[in-house]
């Protein structure tokens, strides 16, 4: 499945970009993960965005409804990686992959830093995708860090293939230990033997999502057109830096969409 633009994130930046692109006759897919843990969703009231007086959940739902009405294709899941395939970008989401001429990253921010041992054991027993790697750990002890509805579905999947799942929220003082590969995880002061740790937080850290993407102090570096250092990849919203406000995110999304639209038109010439 190929679209002109694929947007990662369905918050105000992603939705603003998607709507702008639809109004420019571009085909758009938006990767939307479970919204419950976003800071927007937790807002009791959106009080400083013009014309809107809604709770966080109401506002998020309104964005999703509006995108659906405008013919935006919504893909539910977590984006795992973005890769340059030559003429297009490939974006892996769960057990599928999508292609697009341009990509807009509007994935918000993940405030947590890596767990102790996480970076050391990526690909050696630390996994970000239960559907990808679960089968390699059939019948074994695994730990899952994550509390979203999607993380719960993944836990059910792992149990269904015979994994013995240790459920963690990530706030237990996590340390991942091992030698060549992961052998155990420390949580809440107790050490548990596990063969794999699945980290299923809502957004994958930016450096792992896109290889070679330039970022500084945890924010994606963009120019005034919201273009990143990789031609064809744009970014908008909280992931490009402060202030973390709906109005700024929507504005960013609008600019990113216009830039992505020109990029697509130039490519198709």
């Amino acid at each position, binding site marked *: 499945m190929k679209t002109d633009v694929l947007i990662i994130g369905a918050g105000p930046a992603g939705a603003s970009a998607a709507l702008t692109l639809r109004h420019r006759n571009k085909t758009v897919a938006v990767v939307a993960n479970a919204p419950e843990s976003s800071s927007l969703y937790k807002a009791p009231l959106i009080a400083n965005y013009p014309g809107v007086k809604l709770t966080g959940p109401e506002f998020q739902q309104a964005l999703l409804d509006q995108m659906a009405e405008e013919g935006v294709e919504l893909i539910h899941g977590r984006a*795992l*990686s973005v*890769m*340059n*395939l*030559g003429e297009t970008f*490939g*974006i*892996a*989401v*769960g*057990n*599928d*992959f999508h292609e697009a001429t341009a990509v807009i990253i509007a994935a918000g921010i993940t405030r947590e830093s890596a767990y102790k041992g996480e970076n050391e054991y*990526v*690909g*050696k*027993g*630390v*996994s970000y*995708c239960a*559907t*990808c*790697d679960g*089968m*390699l750990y059939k019948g074994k002890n695994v730990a899952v860090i994550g509390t979203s509805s999607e993380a719960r579905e993944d836990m059910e999947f792992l149990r269904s293939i015979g994994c013995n799942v240790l459920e963690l929220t990530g706030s237990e003082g996590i340390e991942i230990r091992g030698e*060549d*590969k*992961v052998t155990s995880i420390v949580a809440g002061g107790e050490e548990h033997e596990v063969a*794999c740790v699945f980290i299923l937080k809502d957004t994958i850290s930016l450096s792992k999502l896109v*290889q070679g993407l330039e970022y500084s102090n945890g924010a994606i570096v963009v120019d005034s057109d919201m273009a990143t250092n990789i031609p064809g990849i744009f970014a908008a919203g909280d992931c490009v830096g402060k202030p973390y406000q709906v109005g700024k995110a929507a504005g960013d999304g609008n600019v990113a969409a216009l830039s992505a639209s020109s990029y697509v038109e130039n490519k198709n010439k």
Partner: protein
Amino acid sequence: MAIVTLTNENFDATVKEGTVLVDFWATWCGPCKMQAPILEQLDAKLGGAVTIGKVDVDEEPVLANRFGIASIPTLLIMKNGEVAEKRVGVTDAATLEALVK
């Protein structure tokens, strides 16, 4: 040259000589599906100078275990039967091309 399906039976004979790029993958894995067209592109470009083989970890648990595959896709560069390089995660064509040269 077509991409070779590797099994426990033909693996050792295939990787014994020269450079072979081996992709450990599975049908349920999105990033693996994304790796597939990259390998096809690379295969077309290299025109058979390097053999490219694919191991379905679901069909070939013995091979997955033998090479300690902990996450897929994992790509091995085999040179004369030995593992020269191991890459975990989707890898672009340019990086792979540099590694097999």
